């Protein structure tokens, strides 16, 4: 009975304390001396593992810059599309910089920082000679995808494609390579950089016009959006665009020019 009582108490404490968040995140981060950033590690060259096991890439450069501007150290936590928002809500990470598209539904869950820092859309990587020329060709075909990508549902609905979603990029590309699906629907940014840089993809192409262009946003917890922490992040992103830092880092990581970055710089200048 005693054990049961303790269990119940423990469960109650768990439920109660889950809701309690500290008052001011920015102060907490400064006090802790580090900011925990959720980044991708399977999304070259935005975030990936180098041969020494460190996470590097464009978004890691951004994360480090955020830490520098706050005067704290940076801790990187690898996330995937299906868990990044939960991690932020639970407080495991303080900030998401993980190729996350900005949309209405997600704005109800996390605090999307404006201006957006990047933009990308959906496209398909398919073997050359697959006969795919337009999105409508996907009708009734198996298409590999990643769990939690925002465009999966639309591709399935609009083109009647049969989405076969895997948890990670290695599984999806393995399934594409063994012919389990006609193509792999993913961010056009990722596909372009893979086709350009990796010999593994020599026999593949990106046959469609990029669709569902969506701005990407870094995100803070929802209740921090209008607090000092959210304001600080807005300033930082604005500064990235104004100073040309994003364009410079984009090129330094070997990514093709993104018209969105130029637009933003012109707009904010």
């Amino acid at each position, binding site marked *: 009975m005693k054990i049961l009582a303790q269990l119940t108490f423990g469960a109650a404490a768990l439920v109660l304390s889950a809701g309690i968040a500290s008052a001011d995140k920015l102060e907490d981060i400064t006090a802790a001396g580090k900011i925990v950033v959720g980044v991708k590690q399977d999304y070259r060259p935005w975030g990936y593992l180098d041969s020494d096991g460190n996470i590097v890439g464009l978004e890691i450069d951004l994360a480090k810059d955020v830490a520098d501007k706050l005067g704290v150290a940076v801790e990187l936590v690898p996330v995937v*599309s*299906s868990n990044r*928002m*939960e991690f932020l809500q639970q407080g495991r990470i303080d900030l998401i910089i993980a190729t996350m598209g900005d949309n209405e*539904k*997600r704005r*109800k*869950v996390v605090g999307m920082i404006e201006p957006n820092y990047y933009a990308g859309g959906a496209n398909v990587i398919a*073997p050359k*000679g*697959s*006969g795919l020329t337009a999105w409508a060709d996907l009708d009734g075909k198996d298409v*590999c995808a990643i*769990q*939690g*990508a*925002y465009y*999966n*549902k639309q591709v399935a*609905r609009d083109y009647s494609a049969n*989405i*076969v*979603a*895997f*948890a990670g990029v290695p*599984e999806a590309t*393995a*399934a594409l*390579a*063994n*012919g*389990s699906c006609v193509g792999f629907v993913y961010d056009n940014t990722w596909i372009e950089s893979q086709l350009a840089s990796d010999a593994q993809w020599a026999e593949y192409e990106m046959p469609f016009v990029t669709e569902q262009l969506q701005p990407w946003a870094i995100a803070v917890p929802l209740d921090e959006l209008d607090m000092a922490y959210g304001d600080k992040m807005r300033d930082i992103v604005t500064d990235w665009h104004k100073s040309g830092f994003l364009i410079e880092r984009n090129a330094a990581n070997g990514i093709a020019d993104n018209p969105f970055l130029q637009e933003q710089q012109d707009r904010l200048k």
Partner: protein
Amino acid sequence: MESFEAFFSWLYSDHGINLTIGYDSYDRGRFLDGVWTTIKLSVLSILFSLIIGAVGAWVQGSPLRILRVFIGFFIAFFRNTPPLVQLYFFYFAVGTVLRVTGENGLPQPLVSNFGWAVISLSLFAGALNVEIFRSGIEAVPKSTIEASEALGFNRLQTYAYIVLPLAVRVALPSLGTNLVNLVKTTTLAYAIAVPEILYASAQIWSDELNVREMMNVLLLSYIGLVAILVWVLHRWEKALRIPGYGV
């Protein structure tokens, strides 16, 4: 149906409980498809695992040593390696080798991910079923087998008509446990993107961001499925009961 959907919409707007499968027909369709896939996956795997178990146990009693050794290897391998890695091995490794050229000239896999899930799960559960049937067969009295031999049954006939039916009855309790385990193990098919309940739920909570609600629906669905299986097994056990044997 409208009041049903209205109820779930009200649940979301007034209480923040976002059960999209209640009011969004697309999500409900995905989820029900998932339930159906899990049922198909479970039933097929149970069927094949029982066949593997029965055949394997028969072969284990064979006078041919090489056959017995083979079955022994099969059991030891599938019983002592992780089912998830077995599934990956079949789908990503064997599946990549087993390919045919499709109509567009590109290689296509011979077996779909659903097919591999059935194969892998049947072999995994079948290996244990062989052992369970085996212990059931050992419990069949020698005199029964001798009696059937005296009646002119050959080895296969004795096995099929006399030994197996008795062995199944003895083995039913542990067989039931294993089959319940098998239904629980169908969740692994998620890893190779077979659209079963877990996969469908994960799709829904990634799109709608209602993790908590879907997670509870998911748990309840599995408990429901297991409960149905337990009930069926219980009925089966009752129907097969040997009069005057046990309580």
